């Protein structure tokens, strides 16, 4: 433990460089001889590329090369892939349309790259890109998921008739149909989960450098998972074999899922660097980010929840249409299936669940995991249904939830997941008390006297994170295992380096991982450094997403630490002539229990490296590695209570109070955990009140800048009251569950439940903008 150990609010080690302007992001890289890339992008949502004339651009000042999709295909650069196989109900595999990194023949969304200009400066590349002349033959486009599956809709890929990628299902259809048919009450909602743009503040960037002397490529890139990037770039995209490709993700300015994927621009930068034999830098501008970063959500759902006469849930039936955009991004197939429908049981005993999910191509940018990835969509379905049911059954929404809570663990849901631990009553109780739920009627009356409409809404969310057991996800179609690796190096002077396959892009791993080491050895965090994000330094790793860095990444560190400590104890027992079982490590010392014999941990480390006096047969050195594969997902859960005040004159919604009570299991650094919740909740409030990506019927993105896409700003949101309840996760050594996504998962239904309560309507489609709310009030 100690002042910097587990559970302590330790200020972040990484902050010094960020607050002094010394962060090192990809776009900050400057290499000798570096060139700059600007892409020529399609202005059409769907078109044949009939000709590309690069001659004028190639002759412009500073231009090094102008490269097209045809050359890329000729060089046998592989098509982009989706790495998770999902099968349809009929057993057929998902229909993956070809996605070349630059389109040689057909473009299927606005912003798709058709050519790239490499020049001495970025401005020269931009000037020349405007001089590339591309002739298109426009084709009809379709952007909405329901339009895309209608008869006669424009067809995107020959591989996918009817634009259908798969028609998937989970659960027992017959039993669920029977449960609904025999129910005393069925509540039905048609739900749209609005399309979002993740918008990390750092735009994507790639610097590719080819070294012809060693035939070696290095890529600095804005990645949440550099090893996975190297694997995919090598195995599928054919830019270089793995041992000839180094991927470095330096400081990365947020990701939220959108930097998991390997995008066309990184592939092209690597390929182009080899072609021009010079380093190539590409940095997205914000409009490009809107046009080409993978979007999130975009579901259309019909959901039905059945109750018996005693208000116990009998069954849930869901049919969802998921828009995956024009191409299948890396994990896109899994998001509306295994990350969505497997969470439809929520916190409740639902004996029968049946969900169908049809994933569909449209002429829009790819949709993939964005903070929460499927679980926000599932939570929105379940929690909107529960609130609506309570209103229709005329019972208290909190009590209806309480009546149906799962209270016994482990709990096997009808949709794959086995919840390991939780106490949903505890988080509900804490949240209701903190929100003064009982006092709400008085506040509503007081608001009414001021001419304002006040409403309160709950959301009892559950999510599955700490992804994930490799065997389980493999059986569900994942192309990779989702273990994590760690290496702990104790230096001869006793300082410690932790090398992790997790990647920090804001999560504070350099601090929390050091706290773990500090906790175990009793040395200050200043003597621990955490290295990540470089495939030449870290042995391997699956990266950071799905709130996995704590539950999986730190578990790997624990396993490596256990090996280090075991060896250190053997050495110390030998040096102090004591029994190995009597050795304990605490406060930076190695002690013989029950005696005053002890030595500094640093001297044990030194002994390990001098090798002068080690136990017979022991190898020198004090460095251990581990690969940790989790046994189950983890299941963070909690209750959010949102109270809003709506101005009926303007339709403007103000969040009057927001309370979160989360159960994340063990907290390593509560300050960092709270920061994750603040950020997640605001992204969820953004979804509920402000954000929405909109395409015109022709496929033009109407919300392609911060002037058109409403990001939450400081005066759109309140400060928050956060609480924690704790049930430890039994599945990992630290009892951690994960906190990165909960806020974005739990908050949208709480906000919409509050607004619909305030204005007395049944439903409202996100985002609840003032015009929409005003129209709902005034009919």
């Amino acid at each position, binding site marked *: 433990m100690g002042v910097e150990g587990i559970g302590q609010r330790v*200020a*972040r080690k*990484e*902050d*010094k*460089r*960020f*607050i*002094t*302007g*010394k*962060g*090192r*992001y990809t*776009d*900050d890289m*400057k290499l000798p001889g570096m060139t700059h890339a600007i892409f020529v992008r399609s202005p059409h949502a769907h078109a044949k590329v009939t000709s590309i004339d690069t001659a004028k651009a190639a002759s412009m000042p500073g231009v090094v090369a102008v490269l097209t999709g045809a050359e890329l295909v000729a060089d046998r650069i592989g098509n982009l892939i989706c790495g998770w196989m999902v099968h349809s109900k009929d057993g057929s595999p998902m229909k993956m349309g070809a996605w070349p990194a630059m389109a040689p023949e057909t473009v299927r969304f606005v912003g798709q790259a058709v050519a790239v200009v490499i020049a001495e400066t970025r*401005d020269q590349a931009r000037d020349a890109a405007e001089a590339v002349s591309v002739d298109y033959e426009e084709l009809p486009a379709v952007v909405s998921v329901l339009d895309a599956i209608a008869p006669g809709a424009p067809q995107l890929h020959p591989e996918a008739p009817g634009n259908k990628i798969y028609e998937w299902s989970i659960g027992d259809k017959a039993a669920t149909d029977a449960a609904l048919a025999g129910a005393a009450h069925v509540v039905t909602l048609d739900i749209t989960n609005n399309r979002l743009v993740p*918008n*990390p*503040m*750092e*735009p994507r960037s790639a610097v590719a450098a080819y070294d012809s002397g060693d035939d070696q490529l290095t890529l600095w890139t804005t990645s949440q998972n550099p090893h996975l990037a190297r694997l995919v770039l090598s195995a599928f995209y054919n830019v270089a074999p793995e041992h000839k490709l180094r991927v470095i993700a330096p*400081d*990365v*300015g*947020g990701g*939220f899922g959108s930097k998991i994927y390997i995008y066309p621009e990184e592939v092209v930068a690597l390929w182009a660097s080899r072609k021009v034999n010079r380093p190539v830098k590409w940095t997205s*501008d*914000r*409009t490009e980010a809107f046009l080409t970063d993978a979007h999130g959500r975009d579901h259309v759902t019909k959901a039905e929840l059945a109750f018996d006469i005693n208000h116990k849930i009998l069954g849930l039936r869901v049919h969802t249409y998921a828009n995956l955009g024009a191409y299948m991004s890396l994990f896109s197939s899994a998001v509306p299936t295994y990350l969505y429908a497997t969470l439809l049981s929520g916190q409740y005993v639902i004996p029968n669940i049946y969900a169908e999910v049809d994933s569909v191509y449209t002429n829009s940018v790819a949709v993939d995991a964005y903070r929460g990835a499927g679980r926000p969509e599932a939570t929105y379905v379940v929690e909107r249904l529960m609130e609506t049911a309570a209103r229709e059954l005329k019972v208290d929404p909190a009590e209806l939830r309480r009546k149906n809570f799962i209270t016994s663990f482990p709990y096997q849901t009808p949709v794959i997941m086995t919840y390991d631990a939780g106490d949903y009553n505890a988080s509900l109780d804490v949240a209701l008390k903190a929100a003064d739920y009982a006092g709400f009627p008085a506040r509503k009356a007081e608001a009414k006297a001021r001419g304002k409409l006040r409403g309160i809404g709950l959301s009892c969310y559950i999510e599955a994170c700490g992804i994930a057991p490799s065997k389980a996800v493999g059986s569900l179609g994942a192309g990779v295992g989702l273990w994590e690796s760690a290496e702990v190096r104790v230096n001869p002077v006793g300082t410690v380096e932790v090398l992790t396959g997790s990647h920090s*892009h*804001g*999560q*504070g791993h350099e601090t929390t991982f050091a706290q773990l080491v500090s906790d175990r050895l009793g040395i200050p965090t200043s003597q621990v450094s955490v290295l990540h994000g470089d495939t030449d330094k870290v042995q391997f790793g699956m990266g950071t997403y799905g709130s996995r860095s704590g539950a999986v990444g730190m578990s790997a560190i624990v396993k490596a630490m256990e090996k280090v400590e075991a060896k250190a104890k053997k050495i110390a027992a030998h040096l102090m002539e004591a029994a190995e079982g009597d050795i304990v490590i605490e406060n930076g010392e190695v002690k013989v229990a029950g005696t005053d014999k002890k030595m500094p941990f640093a001297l044990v480390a030194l002994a390990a490296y001098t090798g002068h006096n080690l136990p017979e047969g022991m190898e020198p050195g004090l460095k251990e590695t581990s690969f940790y594969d989790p046994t189950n997902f983890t299941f963070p859960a909690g209750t959010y209570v949102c109270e809003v005040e709506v101005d009926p004159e303007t339709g403007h919604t103000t969040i009057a109070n927001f309370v979160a009570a989360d159960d994340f299991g063990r907290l390593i650094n509560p*300050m*960092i955990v*709270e*920061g994750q919740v*603040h*950020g*997640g*909740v*605001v*992204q969820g409030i953004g979804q509920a009140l402000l954000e929405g990506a909109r395409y015109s019927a022709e496929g033009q993105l109407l919300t392609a*800048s*911060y*002037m058109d896409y409403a*990001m*939450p*700003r*400081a*005066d759109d*949101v309140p*400060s*928050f009251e956060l609480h924690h309840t704790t049930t430890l996760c039994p599945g990992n050594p630290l009892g951690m569950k994960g906190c990165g996504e909960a*806020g974005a998962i739990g908050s949208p239904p709480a906000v919409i439940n509050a607004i619909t309560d305030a204005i007395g309507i049944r439903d409202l489609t996100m985002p609840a903008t003032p015009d929409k709310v005003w129209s709902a009030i005034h009919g």
Partner: protein
Amino acid sequence: MTTVSITVNGKTTAADVEDRTLLVSYLRETLGLTGTHVGCDTSQCGACVVHVDGKAIKSCTVLAVQVSGSSVTTIEGLSKGDDLHPVQVAFREHHGLQCGFCTPGMIMAAVDIINRHGGHLDEQTVRHELEGNICRCTGYHNIVKAILDAASKMQVAVAAE
């Protein structure tokens, strides 16, 4: 090309730049001061905020030639040697940053807010004043706390002088 002469963090700098060169490009590319960031292309996000002659401006919206002869302070020039500015200290103490990308602009904007309002800052004012700076990580909660704390500490420091 035009020759510009700009005092940056107390040092005189000069270079020939294209007329279209933005101040942020001059700082990042010509001078290598990469602490100032570019997060959008419509002057909305505020990651590029620096001080020109003591006032916060968005350096993505100003040409380098426009500030020739002026004095510019960037995030790299905010601390006095190893002595961090109170706003920098407060951002760290209150966990007002996560990925760090918006942070330089946030801090430079915050210093300007505190300077303009003196001791008269409350949460609502801070939130309103931050409308030109977007953060996607923190939900603003801890940024607001940090700015309020720094404002009160700076007030105390001024009073003590």
